[in-house]
């Protein structure tokens, strides 16, 4: 492992315009390796657009962005191999079993058959899914789907995992358990880039950025932000910023 201060995501003056509308305006930030980076903002603040650019799905209008050292303009293929992605929808195939889901996603990332087998056994064991491994995903409770989706997103051992509102619609206890998984991943040196609506979750992040109307209005550790905005909770910070 290299130094802790190594930047895995570097974004500078990133702009994305759709016609006259500017979805992202001059975004500048960096994320360190192994960091849990919270990316907050109200709906329509430009979070999704930013994530799509960082994942190599969309090209920015101008500015610079390096993901794991790869350029979002020219090296999207390399970016894609090095990132994992999980959304609120959990993105599993409901009519396949957990094992088939793992096998499929392992396959599209080009993992070898033996590696997939090994990973499958490990995942089933860790998630306690051995009993339900022949059940279709549609029959599983939401919390299990969420954990399975996270495991699937981590199959190819990406350097960065993008989590787009990964805890939407999940109960508090399951959310807590899910954050434990996130901590473990971060502990192994994987960078977590997470968006969320739950302000209590923002407190779990190492650093948090808050986006308002396409711009990053604040970026620091949760404690410093609370101090800066004289607030007790991240929720207050968020409201003060969002209301301008």
């Amino acid at each position: 492992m290299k130094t802790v201060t190594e930047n895995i995501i570097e974004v500078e003056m990133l702009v994305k315009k759709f016609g006259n509308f500017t979805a992202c305006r001059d975004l500048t930030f960096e994320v360190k390796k192994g960091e849990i980076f919270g990316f907050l903002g109200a709906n329509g603040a430009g979070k999704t657009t930013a994530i799509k650019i960082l994942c190599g799905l969309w090209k920015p209008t101008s500015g610079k962005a390096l993901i794991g050292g790869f350029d979002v303009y020219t090296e999207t293929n390399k970016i894609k191999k090095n990132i994992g992605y999980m959304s609120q929808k959990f993105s599993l195939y409901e009519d396949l079993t957990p094992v088939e889901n793992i096998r499929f996603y392992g396959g599209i990332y080009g993992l070898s058959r033996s590696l997939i087998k090994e990973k499958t056994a490990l995942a089933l064991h860790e998630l306690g899914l051995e009993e339900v491994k022949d059940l279709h995903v549609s029959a599983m409770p939401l919390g299990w789907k969420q954990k399975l989706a996270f495991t699937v997103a981590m199959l190819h051992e990406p350097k960065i995992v993008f989590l787009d509102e990964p805890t939407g619609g999940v109960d508090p206890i399951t959310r807590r358990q899910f954050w434990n998984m996130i901590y473990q991943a971060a502990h192994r040196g994987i960078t977590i880039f997470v968006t969320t609506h739950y302000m209590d979750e923002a407190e779990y992040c190492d650093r948090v950025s808050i986006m308002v109307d396409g711009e990053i209005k604040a970026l620091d550790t949760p404690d410093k932000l609370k101090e800066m905005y004289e607030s007790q909770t991240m929720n207050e910070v968020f409201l003060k910023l969002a209301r301008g």
Partner: protein
Amino acid sequence: MKNLLGFVKKEFFHIFRDYRTLLILFGMPVVQLLVFGFALTNDIKNARIAILDHSKDNITSKLTQKILSSGYFILAQNLDSEAGIEDAFKQGNIKQVLIFEADFAEKIEREGTASMQILADASDPNVAKILTNYTTAIVSDFQRELLADKKLPIEVKTEVRMLYNAEMKSVFMFVPGVITVLLLLISAMMTSISIAREKEMGTMEVLLVSPLKPIQIIIGKVVPYVLLAFVIALVILILGYFVFGVPIRGSLILLLGYSLVYILLSLSLGIFISSVVESQQVAMLISMVALMLPTILLSGFIFPIENMPWPLQWLANVIPAKWFIIVMRGVMLKGIGVQILWKETLILFGMIAFFIALSVRKFKIRLQ
């Protein structure tokens, strides 16, 4: 290549685990073909008629005999007076009434002319028309027999032969039609729905974020449906051939080749649809309304295009099925090949290129 195989396998899981769809996929061709083949024929046999004979002489009874022995008609009742006609029709089981005027034979003998009236139930205009045509044909035939012993000043003899479908079986038209409709249904509707499902479930996002290229995603989604559609085309051809005796006079290879081209065309349509919709419901609705209806109504499958008003005839030109049906009938029934069907072939390929280009453009706009 390896990850593509996994993709295709996964797609087959989707298809085979959805029992209802699978049942529809394989049940529909069989049911449609049997229904169209046995039930929905345009030929009319054993139509029930009534006869009101005011004359009751040897000529009217001979003519009646001739009409009834044709196989098209069954005598349901003999009427005594005009008063009964209305009732006979209203009860609904009689399609046609024949009325001979009084002194029929005598008038023919003396004046050389006698009249009979044909009343038909035109609440179903097609049937009425066909039946009156049958009847007048039989009557004029009878007329010629009567004249046989007398010398005619001049005579034109017509001899009719129905080429390519000597017995005028409707099923000869329906087999190509059913293939056309079903291939479109499977290829366009099923692919558009299955791609829309990935979007709806959010799995499409994950696929796009993965190292798979968009073209690989599309191919992975499409390959299973190509195979499925091809198998179903074969099933229909085999059923048509062995159950209904529909011939394949042209090259079988060519026929299968054309089927593949049409499957690809339908797939490109399906991909185009899925590139504009976000949900399975909308994909299904568009496939049904924008594809199925025009294909059934305007492709010449059931209703002849020549009889349509010109705006519809013009519209029919942009419907892929129209060209495929021409090709299918040409190859199956007439036994012709590409040298005659080159125009239709070019149009089919042109349409594929058009829809793929459109989808790619749409996709690029989304990526910008």
